[in-house]
């Protein structure tokens, strides 16, 4: 059940434009209408979350209600970003759903250890992606209750 508070942005951190496009499309198909913001690398995502760099004086930048995070990115990779976000006292309350190609047990273990809420292996086909989007919608924006937005931001 959607209400004004829960219609907040989703931050998708993903280096592949093809994967971003597919995710965006699958969200549409799944009826997930939250605004989707895309950062293509870890540093950019960090700037966005901390309102730094090119995001310093831009209005309309809001803290996302959910972060979808790919692990394998050039530069600051997903694991490092996850660690930083979960140690930042302002950012750590945002649920992070790791959405990545790897299903390596070590990666899974590490992400949960660092504080990720969920680890999902990116489905190989588009139909699978639509299913994931549907479940995300039903779970994070249906059943789950999210922390209130801080005025400070």
């Amino acid at each position, binding site marked *: 059940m959607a209400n004004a508070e829960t219609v907040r942005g989703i931050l998708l951190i993903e280096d*592949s434009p093809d994967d971003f496009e597919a995710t965006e499309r699958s969200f549409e198909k799944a009826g997930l209408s939250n605004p989707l913001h895309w950062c293509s690398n870890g540093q950019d995502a960090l700037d966005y979350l901390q309102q730094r760099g090119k995001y310093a004086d831009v209005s309309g930048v809001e803290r996302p209600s959910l972060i979808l995070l790919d692990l394998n990115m050039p530069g600051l990779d997903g694991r490092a970003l996850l660690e930083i976000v979960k140690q930042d006292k302002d950012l750590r309350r945002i649920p992070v759903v790791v959405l990545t*190609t*790897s299903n390596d047990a070590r990666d899974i273990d590490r992400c949960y250890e660092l504080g990720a809420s969920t680890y999902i292996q990116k489905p190989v086909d588009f139909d699978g992606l639509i299913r994931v989007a549907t479940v995300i919608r039903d779970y994070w924006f249906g059943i789950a209750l999210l922390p209130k937005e801080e005025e400070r931001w």
Partner: protein
Amino acid sequence: METPVPPVKPRLAKDFLAAVLDTVIDGVISINESGTMLSVNAAVLRIFGYREEQLVGHNVTMLMPEPHRSAHAHYIQNFRRTGIAKVIGVGGRELTALRADGSLFPISLGVTETIVDGVSIFVGVIRDITERHAAQELSTELAGVAEVVVDALVVIDETGTIQSWNPAASRIFGYESSEVMGKNVKLLMPEPYHSEHDEYLRRFALTREPRIIGSGREVTGRRKDGTLVPIDLAVSELRRDGAHRYVGLIRDISERKRREQEREQLIEALKLTNQELDDFAYIASHDLKEPLRGLANNARFLEEDYRDKLDEGGKSRLKRMRYLCIRMESLINDLLYVSRLGRQELAIRDTDLNLVIKEIVQLMEPVLEEQHATIVVPRPLPRYECDHVRVQELFRNLITNAVKYNNSPVKSIEVGHLDQHKGYKDVFYVKDNGVGIDPRFHSEVFRIFKRLNAEPDDTKGTGSGLTFVKKIVERHNGTVWIESELGEGATFYFTLS
């Protein structure tokens, strides 16, 4: 004060001397100038194996082998003519004599001349030196052995002084025999042994606790030029006739050491290469998947967004593209899986293989029914130490193949275990009544992505099932092989250790 011994009376003297002559160990023969034997004592009879009447009155040459036998007459003649004693008066001369049974043996012969009643008599004293000779021969032979043997033989006494040195030792250490005889063996040792060897000898003499005695050990020796040489040293103790010796057998193992090192390096390099290959396959699979995903999605989005603008040809072309992407993805997944099999640790556990097969049968029930296939396990399978999950996959792949490559109306598959087969122990097998495999391809079929027959798109596999089988078997340090002829079914045999 000694009691004087009364002189023996003349008549008794003769008997006395006769008795003495007949008890001495050495043989005494008297002959005349023609060589005719005049008297022989008891020892002669014993030594040569004759009776007295066979010898006395006969020529002494019957006790000699050729060439002496024929030459004896000349010897006597020469002596008469020249007066030069070859055998006469000369101390024990070693010759070869002939026994009654025809055997030859070595003797030491001493001959003297005397005159009795105006007649020249030669008296020969004969000692059988067979034993002495044997000892000498052994000694000579061993000395010969020490000269030619490849390994160094160094003998020291209980103070460490070198008593014996052979050419091999010279070769290994660079010292001539004259340079080391009488010197302490520690000169062949680098520190700390050089300083400690005296103590070792002392300690062993005291405690009799062998540290190096009796066993071979790899140590380092020091050559004359100061360089070090790796050697294999075996020491034994020798006590004989009051002499106490240590015998060292030394082998230069520089070559062996070098080869060992090369082998170690090769193994390390191989391990590294294998690791790199596995990592490569793993990384490549992951990185290859990303654009593939993009490709598949783009084809789909194209089809979805431009559906109205595409004709049948366009639509089917896109369909084909999407199929090819799925195919590629299967291949990459299989590649990834094979590489993972090489990288991951096995979870070895005591496994009930009957349960493993039961689970497979349950899993494959719909397929088996549809294909009219039955799986038979004639004798219960043993419990075995192996990776449950992997071995299940192994069997599943073989059984799947057995069903798939089978045109019989009733497909029967047999799964079993043999205590022994073709020289291997604990052999498992999966046997089918399928189409069989041409022996030409028995090794090729295990290659990844290799298929023997063209197959329609919808049932086509990637051709990696047997590669998984082989990899899993190999990870268990086992062997897998096929026994099959075209048209006569196939049996896959494998071991898991």
